[in-house]
């Protein structure tokens, strides 16, 4: 792998950039692999990278129906934070944040993790109670999260409207300064390039059509649009389409898929310094390095596998944005789009074994999976390499819906996350 650096960049500038290599190969599938990962999004590619780099498992294929990074990895609003309530979630997301902090260097790819701070706004007494509960819980967990008064929130985010006359006035906020945003495409590409360099085959335009099981019921191969590929272990990381793929292995997953929408404005000069999330009025906003306001909207009310939602959903998000930041009323929506998110009953992910031996799953990240990408890949690689969960993903079993040991962040916060 040709290293990226200012030095090589300048050298290539004198070489008309003719010397750059492919960032990843486009290999034909081999007949068999130790591990096959289904889904070349951020989570799947990260899993492959950590399998190769931390566990020495390099005979790995990542197979992808479309193009790598073409799903939710490249469609989300890139918010990264770890100030979750429960120890299980906070542990997992904090693991991810720590990896984020060194990810550009680890991958030799600038994923632009920008720790500009994530501010979550409280708009009613219930929010205040809930956010303080988070702040206190995070203190015991050793995770940064602080309570801000409305005036402090305004100082941190000058465009914020803290007028008492708002329909839902800002009563304060919880700020995680280490939170921020990253460049989503670069995450997929960086993991792909680094995994590829370690020998992982990334096989795009290859759809899984079925699973082949041996006499004892264990998975021994996946059937794909490009033929049968054998594998000792298979990990499915297919976000909104996980339920569809696992149905082909005879598994019925506790998942519902919804279209989730986002939009960007036309680019403008720097005007918005941080990330603001308001669950009560439903608005999520940051400004990209390109200058676009990146705005997260909600999910449609109906389950769907279509990446197109109704107009009323982004409209409602913009109502909230203009309420909180009236100066943006004359900005323009440049582009809006949808992705399919897979949601579990307790809004926490499932990372671990399935009922089929050799078949593992990493899914159910709902509306907030991007932030977990490195941590999710890291613990799932451990799970695939050893056959047993890493301590951090041990609580996130499929079985918890049977035992009742739920990790219900949404119920706890009464919010999406």
């Amino acid at each position, binding site marked *: 792998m040709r290293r990226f650096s200012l030095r090589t960049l300048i050298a290539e500038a004198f070489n008309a950039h003719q010397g750059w290599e492919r960032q990843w190969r486009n290999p034909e599938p081999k007949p068999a692999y130790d591990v096959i990962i289904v889904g070349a999004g951020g989570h799947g590619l990260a899993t492959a990278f950590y399998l190769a780099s931390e566990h020495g498992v390099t005979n790995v294929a990542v197979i992808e129906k479309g193009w790598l990074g073409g799903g939710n990895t490249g469609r989300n609003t890139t918010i990264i934070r770890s100030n979750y309530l429960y120890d299980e979630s906070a542990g997992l997301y904090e693991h991810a944040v720590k990896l984020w902090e060194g990810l550009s260097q680890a991958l030799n790819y600038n994923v632009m993790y*920008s720790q500009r701070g994530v501010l979550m706004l409280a708009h009613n007494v219930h929010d205040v109670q809930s956010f303080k509960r988070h702040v206190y819980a995070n203190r015991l967990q050793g995770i940064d999260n602080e309570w801000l008064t409305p005036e402090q929130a305004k100082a941190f985010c000058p465009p914020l409207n803290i007028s008492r006359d708002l329909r839902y006035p800002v009563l304060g906020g919880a700020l995680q300064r280490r939170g921020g945003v990253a460049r989503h495409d670069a995450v997929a590409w960086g993991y792909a390039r680094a995994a590829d360099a370690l020998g992982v085959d990334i096989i795009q335009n290859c759809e899984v059509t079925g699973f082949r099981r041996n006499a004892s019921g264990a998975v021994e191969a996946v059937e794909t649009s490009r033929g049968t590929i054998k594998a000792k272990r298979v990990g499915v990381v297919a976000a909104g389409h996980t339920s569809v793929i696992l149905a082909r292995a005879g598994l019925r997953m506790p998942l519902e898929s919804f279209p989730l929408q986002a939009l960007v404005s036309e680019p403008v000069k720097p005007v918005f310094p941080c990330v603001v999330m308001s669950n009560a009025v439903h608005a999520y906003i940051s400004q990209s390095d390109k200058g676009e306001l990146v705005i997260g909207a909600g999910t449609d009310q109906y389950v769907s596998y279509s990446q197109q939602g109704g107009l009323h959903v982004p*409209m409602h998000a913009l109502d909230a944005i203009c309420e909180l930041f009236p*100066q943006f009323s004359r900005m323009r929506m*440049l582009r809006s789009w949808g992705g399919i998110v897979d949601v579990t009953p307790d809004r926490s992910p499932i990372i671990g074994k399935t009922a089929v031996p050799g078949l593992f799953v990493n899914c159910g990240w709902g509306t907030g999976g991007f932030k977990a990408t490195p941590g999710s890949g890291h613990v799932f690689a451990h799970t695939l390499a050893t056959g047993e969960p890493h301590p951090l993903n041990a609580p996130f079993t499929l079985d918890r819906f049977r035992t009742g040991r739920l990790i219900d962040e949404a119920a706890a916060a009464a919010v999406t996350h």
Partner: protein
Amino acid sequence: MAGVNRLPRGGRIDRAKPVSISFNGQTLSGYAGDTVASLLLANGIHLVGRSFKYHRPRGILSHGSDEPNALLSIDRGPGKIDPNNRATVAEARGGLVTASQNHWPSLNFDVGAINDRLSPIFVAGFYYKTFMWPRRFWDRVYEPNIRAAAGLGKSPDGPDADRYGNRHAHCDVLVVGAGPAGLAAALAASEGGKRIILADEQAEFGGSLLHDVTSTVDGTAAQDWAAQAIAMLKARENVTLLTRTTAFGYYNHNHVAMAERITDHLENAPDHLPRERLWQVRAGAVILATGSHERPLVFADNDRPGIMLAESIRAFVNRYAVAPGRRIVIATSGASAYRAAADAHAAGLAVTVVDIRLEADCGPEVAFVRQKGIDVLTSHTVIAATGRKRVTGLIVAPLGSEGRVGARRTLAADCVGMSGGWTPSVHLFSQSRGKLRFDDAIDAFVPGQSVQAERSAGAARGSYDLADCIADGFAAGDPLTARPRLAATPSLTGFQPVRILPTDADATRVRAFVDFQNDVTAKDIGLAVREGFESVEHVKRYTTTGMATDQGKTSNMNALGLMAGIQGKALPAVGTTTFRPPYTPVTFGTLVGPAKNALFDPARITPIHGWAKEHGAEFENVGLWKRAWYFPQGRETMHEAVARECKAVREGVGIFDASTLGKIEVVGPDAAEFMNRIYINAWTKLKPGACRYGLMLKEDGFIMDDGVVARLAEDRFHVTTTTGGAARVLQHMEDYLQTEWPDLRVFLTSITEQYAVIALQGPKAREVIAPLVSDIDLSGEAFPHMTVRTGFICGVPTRLFRVSFTGELGFEINVPSDHGRAVWEAIYERGRAFGITPYGTETMHVLRAERGFIIVGQETDGTVTPDDVGLGGMIAKAKPDFVGKRSLARPDIVAAGRKQLIGLVTDDPSLVLDEGAQIIDDRHRPVPIKALGHVTSSYWSAACGRSIALALVAGGRERMGETLYVTTPDSFAAARVTAPVFFDEKGARVHA
């Protein structure tokens, strides 16, 4: 005559109405009918901005909504400034203050242009390869600098002075685009009386005919034919005509969203008009007559100001009577540009045509312009443009066989028109989820299979000839009636696809732009493909081509063509990126419409709201409701007011507005059975006239909602819910009733808003209402705690509940909403002698906490079972099933160590803990510390003379008397575990 380059005759401008605007502080004149772009060109101004990345000088590329370069900040008055307006769309009118963007210190001298010198480094995706060391420099040094250099205009910094409208409309046929095909479609579709909406983004209908001064249709000038068509449509009552209205989004079920611009073009807009209006149209059928976009040619320095699309020259000359230059060179690979050459020549401008095609491959267009005396160089390529802030010429060279390039020569030019062919505008079709099909004959994607009730017509489906467009429009508008084909001047169509012009220059040094706004060159596309970005989506994201504010209208096909060429694939094999709404950028305010301030979310208020407001209440938001929070008197703080209100209820009588509580009537022969299945409690034996506290679970076994339920009759229950849960509970009930138990004969009716509820609580409550109530025996024996009676209060029918959420003797008086305030006032008047005190939600919270009553959503959070909060005994064990029953048997629900509701009293009685504070058993442990639970409620209790708290703590009921530690903002506080009840432990007072 306004402007040095204004032609003496012609155009659709109104020379009787001069206007002047300001551009970068300079006052410029033009006429009504000008766009800002045509006005600038009339004044000889081509340099209007700097590009996104390299800060290269940029001019006006087009004459319409596909403009990538000419983006201006426009100030229309206080609170009416906004960035990134396309000068080619913004209509000129008096009072406009415009300014160019993305430069410092000035448009002419921009320090940022250093980026252009560094362009050998700043190639596509360079930022992924560097800026990684040292690690902390990314958000502190690199990123701030990158951000400052990026972005285009400046965001407004104050509130928007305009307002916006919103309209829903239904029609049989929506026609998008009022060019020749759209007009024909609307004419045909509206003949039979169907409801038609015709919308076009331009200020006038006519589309391309607005700048076509030579064609004829059906024997008359094409513009006259269009005028007649418009007049006919105007005369039809079943037709709604919308100019300045852009259909920007095509959603499911033929839902099309359109933005209408209403006042921006008016100098003195009446106050009653909104600036823009959102139209949400549901159409029986949609006809997309959205026309096509011209492709630029890709050659070195093709972005110099003064270089524009050939058709745009035609538009500026014919429609706006502006000479975009005096010496014009048209570079083309197709026939249509010859019309531009002819029209510019006819306007007295010097014109030369350079055609990439072999003479033999050209059509009659060559002879057509040569006979007018125009020089045509066929089989020539353009090597480069010269000039920096304004084009000065084109370096051209003859093409030899096998791609050899002959001797260069320079053609002087102050304006260059380029045409690389045409691309149908399939954006809306693609948004409708229709499948595109590649048409080799016209080298473009065209609409294939429709998914919705939609049809494309005219140039939008690659039918470029004028007569064809009209015939196609007729057929689209009314497929059942054959109409005679109208004769029209044959259009000059046909072009040779060319991805990048052949050159003898070192290809690695050439900077030929594909995406003008985002500064993406052909080299960048090559680099991306070389680096393995093979998918069109990858190339788009890696190079940012097509991601600018023009959404790739001018760049996409060239980028795709270049990719195909490099990869050696056919263009359709490369595919196309997804077209996403909106078609052109839409103002946030337009999408918000009236949904701001009070209308952001309509506030729900109770019949007693006005009284509370008049009596100084502070309100809190609970769901959509405004609830009286507390009633401060004089300069009282909240703490003082609440302490006073609490004392009044405990010692005398308090009055509380409980109208927001959800109320549902469950009625029918199977009502009791339905209640049995929904709630954990048993209902069969509850007698009419009796009340019971009910608890319901979700399927997962966790508490969902609670409330007192009264059985009014065998077949009728009056259910109450939490304020925030009312809609959710009704939905939950309906869901089960309709999908799981359709056999049950039960009707559910929300009666929340039908009844005002006045809670009268305190030892003197009975005395206060006694004289006001009739037909009900209020005595303790006849009307005990947890019963309901119907009768009258103040002559108004009432459902009178004897219930208490305070622990005191109390009544909840349900009266029809219309009488709510009158009854409230009557009770209040009567109560004055007893010191009646209005109290708010905060006091209600304190009083119930003193008694240990839970609030769903505060003590519970969706992870709490009935047993966790000490209500396990309410579960009717004998019932075969109820929602959530199965989940209560799950291993982790019955395991030891679950969090249980307890009371906490702090060692320091004056310390009121924070709600949400975490609880641990050893304060000296290092982080991370496993918390045992958290404080759910915490108040100052006047009745106890100390602070009290409720908490959920692991194994809490086994910890009575233990000392635990609770987080405070900067430390921990010690507190002792008690039973979750602090006052009147036996609960005797309610029976008073």
